[in-house]
């Protein structure tokens, strides 16, 4: 691979310095997609004409900005006024959004070129991208394996160099888990840092948009662009703009790294344990102190998550009524049938399962036993983190218990699939940022990763800590060989 295409920062600089034209950069990525995406299926839709038109405008100096001419792919649950926004659901197969997601608008305002939309588990519900009405996405490292999910298309596209960077969304690990399984960086920012306007809602108190990139430096640059307060999202944090790139290469002095035994389970695959132990050594060699921290409510994260997320989803997805937009059944017998048949035909199995679980948890009679109790335990999980951050700057842990699993292995067992999120959901429940960083390869040549957490709103610090690891290692530059 040419050095100009190694990272987002390299591409951006090459275009800015006119070493590579934006048209050539766009052509390079479109050709890679043309050649390889039939085996991977990262994309639901490509915007070839729009891409070439914008690239020509960049070369003519009509479009400028921090990301001028940089091709970026976005998850197909981010609204754009061009093309379709499907959530990989039959429900929205023909949906053309009437507005633009704020995060995507911010990318375009800085000159980025949206190359296409990537596949996901329907409505971002899943951990393997097998629950897609558009067909599954495959892992570029081994096409018999899943890329993870729900942002599997964005992770696979980044891994296969189908774009300089991609955007995903993370509700319970949907950026970090597929980033881990595909060997790329994935960041879930602090809740509220990135506007959710135009992100099709799954669980509103947990959803957050974030980048997939080759390097931490690339992620910092994207964060500088996509973060910020937005009047269109009342949950977006009203903070002064933060610069994530400015001090990125300045190591944190007297860094204290927290290790929680609850994440270092014996059931982790050896390659995962090894990656975390190796990272501990890397940080120690840079002078970091290792602190043992206790997160006693970790194991309750999955049950809390699958109540809170499904309860919110059951409410958010009530809007798909077969009337205003989305799929409508043919020849309904009455209004009730119009709703119930349209929804039954439009939603896939997992979406239905989660809507029903959430509705059940909110039913009178069960509300206190499930939903209210889950919200109380959510606070206990948050308090665990608050206490831990009195002793450390970051928590280092695995993202997943193992490497990418085989397609079809967990599709018949929803609970086994849910347990994939065991090391990621708590960051969403607590609102804190988390980043997945490549940590090498397993014996069978599959990516393993490490995950770093920081306290809420400390995204810039988290990126600096992750950058320290990438300064000392080059795992993030490992790429799959595409067949």
């Amino acid at each position, binding site marked *: 691979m040419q050095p100009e295409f190694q990272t987002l920062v390299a591409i951006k600089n090459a275009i800015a310095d006119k070493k590579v034209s934006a048209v050539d950069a766009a052509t390079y990525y479109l050709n890679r997609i043309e050649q390889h995406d039939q085996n991977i299926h990262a994309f639901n839709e490509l915007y070839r004409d729009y891409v070439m038109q914008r690239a020509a405008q960049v070369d003519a100096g009509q479009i400028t900005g921090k990301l001028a001419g940089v091709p970026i792919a976005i998850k197909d649950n981010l609204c754009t006024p061009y093309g379709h926004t499907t959530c990989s659901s039959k429900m929205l197969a*023909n*949906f*053309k959004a*009437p*507005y633009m997601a704020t995060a995507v608008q911010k990318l375009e305002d800085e000159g980025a070129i949206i190359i296409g939309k990537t596949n996901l588990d329907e409505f971002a519900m899943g951990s393997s991208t097998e629950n897609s009405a558009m067909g599954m996405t495959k892992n570029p490292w081994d096409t018999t394996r899943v890329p993870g999910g729900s942002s599997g298309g964005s992770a696979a596209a980044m891994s296969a160099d189908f774009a300089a960077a991609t955007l995903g969304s993370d509700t319970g690990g949907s950026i970090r888990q597929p980033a881990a399984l595909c060997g790329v960086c994935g960041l879930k920012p602090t*809740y509220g840092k990135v506007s959710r306007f135009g992100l099709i809602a799954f669980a509103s*108190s947990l959803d957050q948009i974030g980048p997939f990139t080759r390097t931490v430096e690339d992620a910092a640059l994207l964060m500088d662009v996509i973060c910020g307060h937005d*009047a269109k999202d009342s*949950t977006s*944090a009203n903070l002064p703009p933060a610069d994530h790139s400015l001090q990125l290469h300045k190591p944190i002095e007297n860094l204290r790294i927290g290790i929680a035994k609850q994440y270092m389970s014996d059931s982790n695959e050896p390659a995962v344990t090894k990656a975390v132990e190796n990272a501990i050594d890397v940080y120690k060699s840079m002078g970091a102190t290792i602190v043992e921290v206790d997160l006693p*409510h970790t*194991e*309750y994260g999955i*049950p809390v998550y*699958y*109540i809170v997320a499904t309860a919110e989803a059951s409410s958010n997805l*009530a809007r798909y*009524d*077969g*009337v*205003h*937009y*989305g*799929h*409508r059944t043919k020849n309904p*017998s*009455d*209004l*009730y*049938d*119009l*709703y*119930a048949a349209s*929804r*039954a035909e439009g*939603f896939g199995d997992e979406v*239905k*399962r989660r*809507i*029903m*679980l959430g*509705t*059940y948890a909110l*039913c009178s009679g069960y509300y206190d036993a*499930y939903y209210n*109790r889950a919200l*109380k*335990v*959510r*606070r*206990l999980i*948050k308090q665990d983190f608050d206490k831990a951050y009195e002793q450390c700057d970051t928590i280092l842990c695995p993202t997943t218990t193992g490497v990418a699993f085989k397609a079809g292995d967990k599709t018949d067992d*929803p*609970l086994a699939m*849910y347990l994939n999120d065991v090391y990621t959901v708590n960051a969403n*429940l*607590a*609102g*804190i940022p988390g980043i997945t960083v490549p940590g090498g390869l397993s014996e069978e040549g599959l990516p393993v990763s490490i995950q770093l957490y920081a306290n*809420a709103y400390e995204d810039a610090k988290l990126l600096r800590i992750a950058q320290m690891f990438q300064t000392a290692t080059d795992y993030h530059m490992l790429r799959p060989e595409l067949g």
Partner: protein
Amino acid sequence: MANPITDADVRHVAQLSRLKLSDEQVAEYTQQLGRVLGYIDKLSELDVDGVEPMAHALDMSNVLREDEPVDGMPVDKALANAPASDPPYFKVPKVLGEGSGA
């Protein structure tokens, strides 16, 4: 452990959720949701007396804006994705009278 959820519960929840299910689906969801709820029952191990429920992880307060009129979405845009419309209206099957259901 007995399944915490019955066929009848699943039918009731499906009706509240406006999801038309076949008998096979009801049976399948009863099994699957039963297993998930069994796992979720783990939460009853904890003593949560006196813990304040937390719907949002970070401090959130109500956000108000100045009461100044702004343009809404134009009707043609709002109707553009409708399965059936008769501008400026969405079109639905006959709701009143026989067969109004629900």
